[in-house]
């Protein structure tokens, strides 16, 4: 049942309007941030108001040609449509934006960032286009919003206006427009051509249909090679944003952006739009049946389904990215590679085509979002409060930021798929799925399990170093770079700390490149009770730089990042504990409420999704989507079926 409604359009436009208001009120920061919050709440309200209807089978749509009589392109309408799959993504993005808008205000003010108006405006615009992607009713509409999303997130990536940010911005534009403007457009044009030449009336069929576009299935039978090319072009187009290797390298570089961007956009809205696009292509453009039946002739192996190369690539990505993440010392980069890996879970689950795997993949979209957003929020909070970006500088930071690092531990456990946290549920379904398919698919199950272990290997050391190590005694990080058994080191040069007779700690820093201004103020916001002016400490190879006076320490360090934004240093390396070690803080005094409340709520959300997934709406939605794709009344009908049996259900 479909129903014409203005609501999908309103949901998209709310933040576009907010963007204008944000720019207009650039003189009044409180009003400006107020608009963000109002828009976020309104957006979520509009999206949520459609939820009951959608769960009962109503699809709300808004069409440009029906409303205004404007045809976007010959034979192609501009359609926004709130269907179950779109609702899953829209609910997620709009819900998380509410808390991110508080957090972003706290973060940007805490660092006294420049160009905040541009930042908040681009942020609102990004959300607008993300919801547009969620509600797009056909391939051209999703292409439009996909391109616009690339465009409006570019200012956020290049925000710092230094060389590093500009280069990251260029890379970002190149990758995303290659994905959107070249691959996705080419794939869309091919589908347009295929369907319009197969249709006796010559009409193109680009609208998404649950279970696959029928006309495309007919056309693919006549011209399989072109259909296969279209499939891979579309997957590659969306795969760029989903950071599937080898198209992933923009994501780690995009971490130069402020942390709210890395959090909501580069862990949720932008990258998920890629994964979501893959879901649209697999479930609603080609459909699992057609993908499975369109054999790809591989020399020496024989015929394999179209999905298999995608699954192999995703399995490779999730393993390789996890291994790379273990070697990253920069926390946000480590999280970025973790995102790369986790997104490939989604792609892998979708490309296995089994109902359980698809269900797991769809549920992993919110599950990963809650977990990863928590992790990024924590990384950002640490950066705002202590200017610490590197894992190797975080020994004992649990004293300074107890609540933040506890939330980090929850997020990390979710990434690893520990029971009771969101990530477990999705991974569980995907494992069942890959097991049910049988055959050579055991290798994907193995990849999933291996990656779970690797997740622990790269995220646990962060939690461990924060809570169970101290400034003067800790292992050098990243663990993988140092000899087995770890290498004991201390932030302080004093020999008395090296009680175990360890080596002089001057070689402990893996990233010392070009840091000659190390002695500038450290430990923002931490009052230091130094009574010994002559106290020396060393954080890298140049101990001569490190005679610091009291004045340096009481300086609160905000100005320093601000200036930093315009110099061309490759490596902002101002972190680490103050000379007297981390000051002990209670969970309420470690940061401002603008930052702490969002962290707590998102972490709670991650636990909720893990403990009672049936009561949080996302699993229901995901189940409903799978039922729609396979054309069954209830998911129970798919229970215990193998892939071939499940695909037969579609054809019935």
């Amino acid at each position: 049942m479909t129903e014409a409604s203005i609501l999908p359009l309103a949901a998209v436009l709310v933040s576009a309007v907010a963007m204008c208001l944000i720019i207009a009120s650039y003189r009044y920061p409180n009003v400006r941030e107020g608009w963000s919050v109002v828009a976020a709440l309104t957006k979520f309200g509009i999206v949520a108001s459609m939820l009951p209807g959608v769960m009962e089978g109503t699809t709300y749509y808004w069409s440009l040609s029906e409303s205004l009589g404007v045809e976007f392109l010959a034979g192609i309408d501009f359609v926004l449509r709130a269907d179950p799959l779109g609702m899953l993504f829209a609910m997620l993005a709009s819900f998380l934006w509410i808390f991110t808008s508080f957090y972003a205000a706290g973060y940007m003010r805490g660092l006294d960032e420049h160009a905040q108006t541009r930042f908040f405006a681009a942020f609102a615009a990004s959300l607008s286009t993300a919801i547009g992607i969620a509600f797009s009713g056909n391939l051209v509409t999703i292409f439009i919003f996909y391109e616009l999303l690339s465009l409006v997130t570019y200012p956020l990536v290049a925000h710092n206006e230094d060389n590093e940010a500009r280069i990251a911005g260029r890379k970002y534009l190149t990758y995303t427009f290659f994905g959107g403007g070249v691959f996705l457009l080419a794939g869309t044009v091919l589908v347009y051509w295929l369907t319009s030449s197969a249709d006796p009336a010559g009409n193109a069929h680009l609208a998404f249909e649950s279970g696959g576009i029928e006309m495309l299935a007919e056309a693919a039978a006549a011209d399989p090679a072109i259909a296969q090319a279209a499939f891979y072009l579309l997957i590659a187009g969306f795969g760029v944003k989903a950071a599937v290797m080898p198209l992933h390298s923009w994501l780690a570089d995009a971490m130069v952006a402020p942390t709210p961007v890395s959090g909501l956009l580069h862990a949720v809205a932008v990258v998920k739009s890629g994964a979501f696009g893959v879901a649209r292509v697999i479930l609603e453009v080609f459909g699992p049946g057609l993908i499975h039946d369109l054999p790809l002739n591989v020399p020496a192996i024989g015929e394999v389904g179209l999905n298999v190369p995608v699954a192999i690539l995703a399995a490779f990505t999730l393993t390789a990215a996890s291994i790379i993440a273990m070697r990253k010392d920069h926390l946000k980069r480590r999280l970025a590679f973790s995102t790369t890996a986790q997104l490939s879970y989604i792609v892998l689950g979708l490309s296995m085509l089994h109902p359980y795997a698809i269900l797991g993949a769809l549920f992993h979209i919110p599950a990963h979002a809650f977990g990863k957003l928590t992790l990024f929020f924590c990384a950002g909070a640490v950066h705002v409060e202590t200017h610490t970006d590197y894992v190797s500088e975080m020994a004992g930071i649990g004293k300074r930021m107890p609540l933040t690092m506890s939330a980090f531990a929850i997020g990390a456990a979710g990434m690893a798929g520990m029971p009771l946290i969101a990530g477990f549920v999705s991974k569980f379904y995907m494992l069942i799925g890959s097991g049910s398919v049988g055959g050579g698919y055991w290798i994907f199950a193995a990849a999933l399990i291996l990656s779970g272990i690797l997740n622990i290997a790269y995220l646990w050391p962060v939690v461990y170093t924060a809570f169970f190590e101290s400034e003067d005694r800790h292992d050098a990080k990243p663990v993988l770079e140092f000899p087995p058994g770890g290498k004991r080191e201390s932030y302080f040069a004093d020999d008395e700390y090296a009680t175990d007779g360890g080596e002089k700690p001057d070689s402990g820093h893996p990233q010392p490149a070009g840091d000659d201004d190390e002695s500038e103020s450290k430990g923002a916001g931490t009052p230091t009770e130094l009574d010994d002016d002559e106290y020396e400490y060393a954080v890298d190879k140049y101990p001569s730089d490190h005679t610091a006076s009291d004045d340096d320490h009481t300086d609160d360090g905000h100005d320093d990042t601000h200036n930093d934004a315009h110099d061309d240093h490759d490596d902002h390396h101002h972190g680490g504990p103050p000379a007297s070690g981390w000051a002990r803080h209670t969970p309420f005094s470690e940061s401002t409420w603008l930052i702490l409340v969002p962290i707590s709520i998102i972490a709670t959300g991650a636990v909720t999704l893990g403990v009672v997934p049936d009561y949080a709406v996302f699993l229901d939605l995901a189940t409903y989507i799978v039922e729609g794709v396979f054309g069954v009344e209830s998911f129970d009908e798919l229970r215990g079926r193998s892939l071939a049996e499940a695909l037969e259900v579609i054809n019935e």
Partner: protein
Amino acid sequence: MSNLAELLPALLIAAPILLATVPIVLGLRFDRTGWSVAAITTTALFAATAYLAAAVYETGRVVHVLGGWGEPQGIGIELVADEFSVLIALLVTVTAAAVLAYTRTGGPRGNTFYTGYLLLVGGLLGLSMTGDVFNMFVFLEIVGLATYAMIASGDGPESAVAALKYLILGTLGASMYLIGVGFLFMATGALNMDVLGEAIPQIADNGGSDLTLLRAAFAFIFVGFALKVAQWPLHSWQPDAYQHAPDGVTPVIAALVSTVSAYALGRIMYNVFGPEFLTATPYLTEIVVTVGAVSVLAGSTLAVIQRDVKRMFAYSSVSQFGLIVVAYGLVTQTAFVGAVIHLIGHGVIKAGLFIGAGVVAVGYGARTVDEYAGLASNRPFAAGSIALLLIALIGIPPSAGFIGKWYIAVGAVEAELWPIAIVIFLSTMLTLAYSARLLEKMYFTPATGVDSPHPAGVATDGGRAGAVSIGMLGILIVTAIVAIGLGFAGGAFFEWLEPFTSEVFN
């Protein structure tokens, strides 16, 4: 209704050419009348064209036979307003009227300049309306001469050299075209496009020496237009001409002169020779698409390495017209619609970009890409409009650039010319390469603080230094909005051209 509409094609051409003398005459007594005369004339022309367009929409094509001398063979000279030509005439009159908002304070000034301006508009309208291949040559020459004069009105030796270069190469192009027309006349004995369009398929069927003549005619005409449209490697006049022409002139030239020449090429290819001839002649379409594809690649590559912003935009035109020539060579209905839309869209976008370059040069003193650093914080409206126009040029939807690219890409896929399709899809990245360079400079590079070598307000023609009037900035913003707004007209353009294309392709 019909009487007036039938008279209009002639009036549209005669009025601006006659009125071109008025600024000079009035100039004997008054100082600054040129702008007013030009403004009134172009506005009236726009109104008349709009009326004509309405008539064409209602009744189909409107033909005006000059002097009422309609011979049975159709040798009489005709002016034709159909869906295709009216669209181009609208672009011409709208742009001509709009750019005046810039030249009022941005210069160039002087009554003689506006005489040349009106002459150019008259020539362009003639070129778009004519239904006669020899008259097309006449109008090509009128346009060419007016353009030389306008380019040369910039001061300094570079303008003179650039004008001379265009004079020589442009005349060469027109001469090639004339030779082609001579061959056509030898083969068919006709100059009227309709008559030619009927005669050529018969000759093509009969074969023989006349067919050879036809092929030679096409070769000469195509090379002539490739020069006029500035296709690689015959583009070398264009960057100099665009860079050194006065800032107020470049928008008109860039938006209209090459565009109308490209329109004329399309008219000759599809109305005179016809799709059957194009596809039946061996290697013809292959050569056309190759010329276009190479221009796309070469033009963008050259644009990326330019330092001067106007020069960069000029090379960008080489590449964008490459897309249009490719679309002509694909010989499908969709690609042809794409070519027409891209003609319009590119015209609007390029006019806007050159107006923007002028506004920035006058108000901010920046002419090279490096000098654009920090423009966004100092001139937010100019920078924002230029950014929107660049985005439209890249072809990010919704924008005029996107819908053109979409139809051309669909056309290439329909023709199953995969290498060409790849070039079209990659053209996005190539356009992005030079556009992003400018975007990054404007928005993400803080101004260096070093004074630019060009003092603000290089309005060498006597414009007030450093003064950007509301009209100049306003027309820039309006153009940017139009470039985005046209992005929603993809279906409308297709429908509008439907009667024309269905006749040509069936």
